[in-house]
């Protein structure tokens, strides 16, 4: 579904939530992401009932959290993005109350990119181990040096 169309349908019901759009995606206010998702999921005529994926992209000065929604009855997709700022604890609400499928993916985004999803029932590291320092998929992540040198032919 084109971003412009999404902007109008979102702003109709939640004014001044959708900020901008391009051909595919719509950017919304991060603190309203749960309302937007609920709107897209439940409104007649939109019905984006399948949360295909949740992920985040690190653009150094901000993070784009990308929600990819699919409507099974209408066979349409929508891309909703939320731009969160800050390197310490970029926070936005979790959508795991709407979709159980978001739980693991939000944990993954938190683990690898350090985006905090407030309201998530069990937000802890998932792919890396407990006690891992840093978030490896951030652009400024530096791998700590190996305590040993990699052997030639090893």
């Amino acid at each position, binding site marked *: 579904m084109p971003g412009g169309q999404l902007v109008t349908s979102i702003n109709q019901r939640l004014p001044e939530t959708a900020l901008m759009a391009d051909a595919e995606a719509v950017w919304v206010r991060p603190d309203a992401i749960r309302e937007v998702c609920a709107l897209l999921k439940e409104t007649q005529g939109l019905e984006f*009932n399948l949360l295909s994926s949740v992920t985040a992209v690190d653009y150094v000065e901000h993070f784009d959290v990308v929600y990819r929604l699919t409507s099974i009855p209408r066979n349409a997709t929508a891309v909703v993005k939320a731009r969160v700022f800050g390197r310490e604890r970029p926070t936005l609400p979790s959508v795991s109350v709407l979709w159980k499928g978001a739980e693991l993916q939000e944990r993954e985004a938190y683990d690898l990119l350090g985006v905090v999803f407030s309201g998530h029932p069990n937000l802890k590291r998932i792919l890396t181990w407990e006690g891992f320092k840093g978030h490896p998929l951030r652009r400024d992540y530096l791998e700590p040096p190996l305590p040993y040198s990699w052997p030639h032919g090893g």
Partner: protein
Amino acid sequence: MTLHTQPVVVNIGPHHPSTHGVFRMRLTFDGENIVDVEPVVGYLHRGTEKLAEERHYTQVITLTDRLDYVASMTNNEAYVLSCERLVGLEAPERGKYLRVIAAELQRIVSHLIGTGFFLQDLGAFATPLMYCMRERERILDLFEMLCGARITVSYMRIGGVFQDAPDEFWPALRKLLDELPRYIDELEGLITTNEIVLARTKGVSPVTPEQAINGSWTGPVLRSTGVDWDLRKAAPYDAYDKVAFDVVVGENGDNYDRYLVRIREIRESIRIVEQCVKQIEPGPVRATTAMLFKPPPGEAYVPVEAPKGELGFYLVSDGSIKPYRCHIRAPSFINLSLLREMMVGWKMSDAIVSLGSLDFNMGEVDR
């Protein structure tokens, strides 16, 4: 004296015969009944997404082989489709058909493995598994003819497939297509109407369509609940819009339906390959691209119907020769989100079987 009972916590995994890799579940038992379940993953995390950021677009293809290592062809396909979308490139017709043939054969392989290990989890002493493996080997032989490798295929390239099929491929494929249905019949004779299989799987761990969609399930497990959703129909890619096939849909979403959907999908895949063999025409298999693929800034995501579900690579390009961000929407990983719904209240044996019926792959879960 009073007797106290308390729930028992058992770690199934990370090294356990039926967790298909290094998957770990913390199961809380009340006797034999499951009270709580928590999946713990990450033991096979190799940082594929990070590695992809450090490699050329073409080099990432070799990484995708290692995600779902029983379905490398589909991984390749999903990745190159996203790359092609970045530049608006399209593969030539013959390349598209070869991709479909490879991907459907791969789907048969993956479903055979899934079925075999499902029965292994049920306690059949490796016999169905061995029969499945036997047929799988024949398909892997075909892959070896196509691309010189059996599992880590790296067959597809941005703009098509890397090379046309050799001459000996087509007779071998013909022979396989003639013989495979008979073997599938035999496998079904061993399993489908077996009373013990029915008693163990029918009505066990049912998932409703609403639950399945809410849990972001995709692929055969979603279809087994009765939702008619197949990306090959919904958003046709490659040559899927030119072949006729049925979307196999289950009814109850229980373990038995998940098995049955897979077996029926094998038959549909054979049908698709048959049609491709008929329709394919000589021609180029690969669009000319520069060896060093350099897309303009932008992003692309093309989901494909992998054997485990919707697989897609979300590629963000900044105009350089390496992807800026490569997120993998891994179906096996996301299909794990309903473990609690599937397992709580059932017995330990059922939990193992449900896990087998999900047919996940740790290479893809942990990436």
